[in-house]
Structure formats: C-alpha cells, structure tokens
C-alpha cells in the first residue's frame, strides 16, 4: 500500500491475533495484525500456503484509506514483481497503488471485488483478498516482516508523526 502509518494522540493500537482464529477481530478502534502472515512496509500482507501465496492490503491500510469503492486488478497469467504495483484501490476520491510483496505469476484474481469492493474494508484478511501468486523466488518471503515486527514497525511509524 502506498502509505505510512498515521500517528496521533488517538492513534490506532495494533493487536496481534492468531491466524488459527481468523474471526477473532477486536473492536473497530483497533487494527488487526494476524500471526502467520508476512508483511511489507507498504502495508500489504502475504500468506504462503504450499505453492500459492495470497496477497492483500492490511487491516490498518484499509482503515486509513476509507471506504473502497473500486478495485483495479490485473489479469490471471500476468506477473508481479516484488515492490512493484500490480493494482489499485479507489477510496475517498483517490486511487492508491497496491504493491506486491513478492514476485511471481498471478494464478487467481478475486473476481468478487469487482462487484463488492467493500470486502477489502470488511474482510481484509479473508474474503477481501486480491490476488493469488505462484512465487518465483520464495526467498523473498524471508525479507518480509512477521506479525510482531510489523506491529512494531507500525508503532514506530505512529510515534514518528
């Protein structure tokens, strides 16, 4: 996500939830960070399961973007590159690039988002997923942040503003 974390006296606190309990969401005052996922500094997450990696923006990202009204996604069969944009979301009169945390071939795109872009807001870690990728360089996942590191990253960004 093309953004940095917002800091204010009432900044969102970040809590870690276990991926085994995906429905354990906290109050809307808090952004959820799921354990078991990997995170990019640009606020996308990736879940690597077998030969496929699922990618989307984080709960904190969607919260700061506001209501998503349109999602621009690539076609299956295309490729993504680590750190490069692959699509965009529109919210509050703005298009915001979404960047891929890893490189690979796009094997599936979430077609539900064309009719229900708000899934990104309501279900950022489940139904709102954007693309599934076959990683071309699995070692790229190692350079991403885990949940604890991402939480700390967000807290440090908050503190710097």
């Amino acid at each position: 996500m093309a953004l940095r974390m917002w800091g204010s006296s009432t900044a969102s606190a970040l809590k870690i939830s276990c991926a085994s309990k995906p429905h354990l969401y906290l109050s809307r005052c808090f952004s959820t960070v799921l354990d078991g996922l990997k995170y990019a500094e640009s606020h996308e997450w990736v879940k690597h399961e077998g030969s496929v990696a699922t990618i989307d923006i984080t709960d904190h990202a969607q919260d700061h973007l506001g209501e998503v009204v349109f999602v621009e996604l690539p076609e299956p069969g295309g490729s993504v590159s680590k750190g490069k944009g692959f699509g965009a979301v529109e919210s509050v009169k703005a298009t915001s690039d979404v960047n891929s945390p890893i490189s690979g071939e796009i094997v599936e795109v979430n077609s539900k988002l064309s009719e229900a872009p708000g899934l990104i807001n309501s279900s950022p870690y489940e139904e709102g997923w954007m693309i599934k990728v076959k990683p071309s360089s699995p070692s790229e996942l190692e350079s991403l942040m885990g949940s604890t590191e991402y939480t700390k990253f967000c807290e440090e960004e908050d503190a710097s503003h």
Partner: protein
Amino acid sequence: MLLPQTRNIGLPMMNLMRFKGLPILQQLHIEEQLLRTSSENWCIINDGTNDPTIVMGVSGKPAELLEIESVLHDQVPVIRRFTGGGTVIVDHETIFVTFICNKEAVPDLQPYPRSIMSWSGSLYSKVFQGIGDFRLRENDYVFGNHKFGGNAQSITKNKWIHHTSFLWDFNVRNMAYLKLPKRAPAYRSARGHLDFICRLNDYMPRSTFIDKTVEAAGTQFSLRSLELEAIETCLETEFRPSTRFLTSEELEVAAAVAGQ
C-alpha cells in the same frame, strides 16, 4: 536587503508550470507522467482549457454519470482520467491547479486521501482567507454549502497528486450533460447541479486567485518556474498514460447495456 530567495532556504523545491488554454488531455498526460516518472515536486496551473470536455474518474461509468445521448449528439469529448473521484465538465472558464509531491515533501503528512486533502484544504484556506465561507466540506471545496472546486487524487508508493478543477465560471447548458451522481456528499442534499455549485468569479478575480495560489504554495515550497519545453526532452517517450478519450463506440455500448 534580503534577497527573495533567502526566504525559501530549507524549503523543498517545487517546479511551477503555468499554462493558458492547454488541452485538458495533454495536461492530464503530463501530470500522469510526472507522477509516475519524476522524482521532483510539481505545481501545474492551467488557466482554462480549449474545448468543453467531460472528465470522469478512473472508475466512472458513463451510463450512470452522463446523458450519453446528448453527449454523443453534441460530440462532447469524454476523458477517463487516472485519478479517483467524480465527473466534471471543463472549459475555458475552468482553472486547474495540481500538486504532485514526494511523500516527504510535506512534513508529517501521511499519504492517505484524507490527510492530503486536509493539507490542501489548509493551503487554499490561505488563498481564500477572508473571502466567503471557504472550507473543505466532505472532501469538496465550498463556499458555505456550494461547491466550486472538484478535486481528485492518486497515491503511488513514493508520491501523490492532488488536482483540482475550479469553476471560475461555467456554462449552465454544459451541466445538462451530467447526471446526478449516485454517490454524493450528504451536504448536497439531493440538489441539482445549478443549486449545488457556485462560481469562483463571484468571489475573486481570476488573476488574483492564481497569484494567491502561487503565493500560498510559495510559503511551503521554493518555487522554480519552468516552461513545458524545458521538460519535454526529459519526459520519457516510452511512458504510456492510462488517461484517454472514450470512443463513441464505447459510449454507445455503455448506453445500450444500460438500456438507455
């Protein structure tokens, strides 16, 4: 005696380009390319565009937003731009102001839509200080509850753009090409175009608005005027902008699908 430049020591540099009557498609192409390929900050001011043109946001659906039959009959050009937001019809009475900034250009500014608009609203508050009841209201620039400027944005990994079309004046007839949007701010209260918008002309002379905008930008950036010719050789020839005209065929298909 202090030289003017010394007041700007420490401020980030911003290139200022001023046009008069530049075609809106060309303006948008320049903006999109600068956003995607330039590492510098930019302010672009275009004092009017040549022909009346409809400009939709990236996700705009012609059948929902336009009176397509009239648009086709009168051959009004329709552009889909690269930023979000709504639909406007622009002409020589529209003044365009654009800011393209690196994410570090404005201290403590988060590159989120509402944060950027809060910054721009603050900048324009300086322009309109003491003039009308100016404010940023539900993401629109208004005097009271009348909108006079439509804005939109695009945010990339390292940069953002905020561009605005200000209604210095407008042709009432042109508004008839636009339908009432399904998504509208609450303060619009279902008002038609003519009851919802107002003219900047009623509040401030044209040249004063432009001069004050440059002055306001100059309080935050060290401005350097550039001509288009100076950057044309630097613009990447391989860049392909997404902003484009919609074809008549596309509009006809949109109308047919919508059952118009």
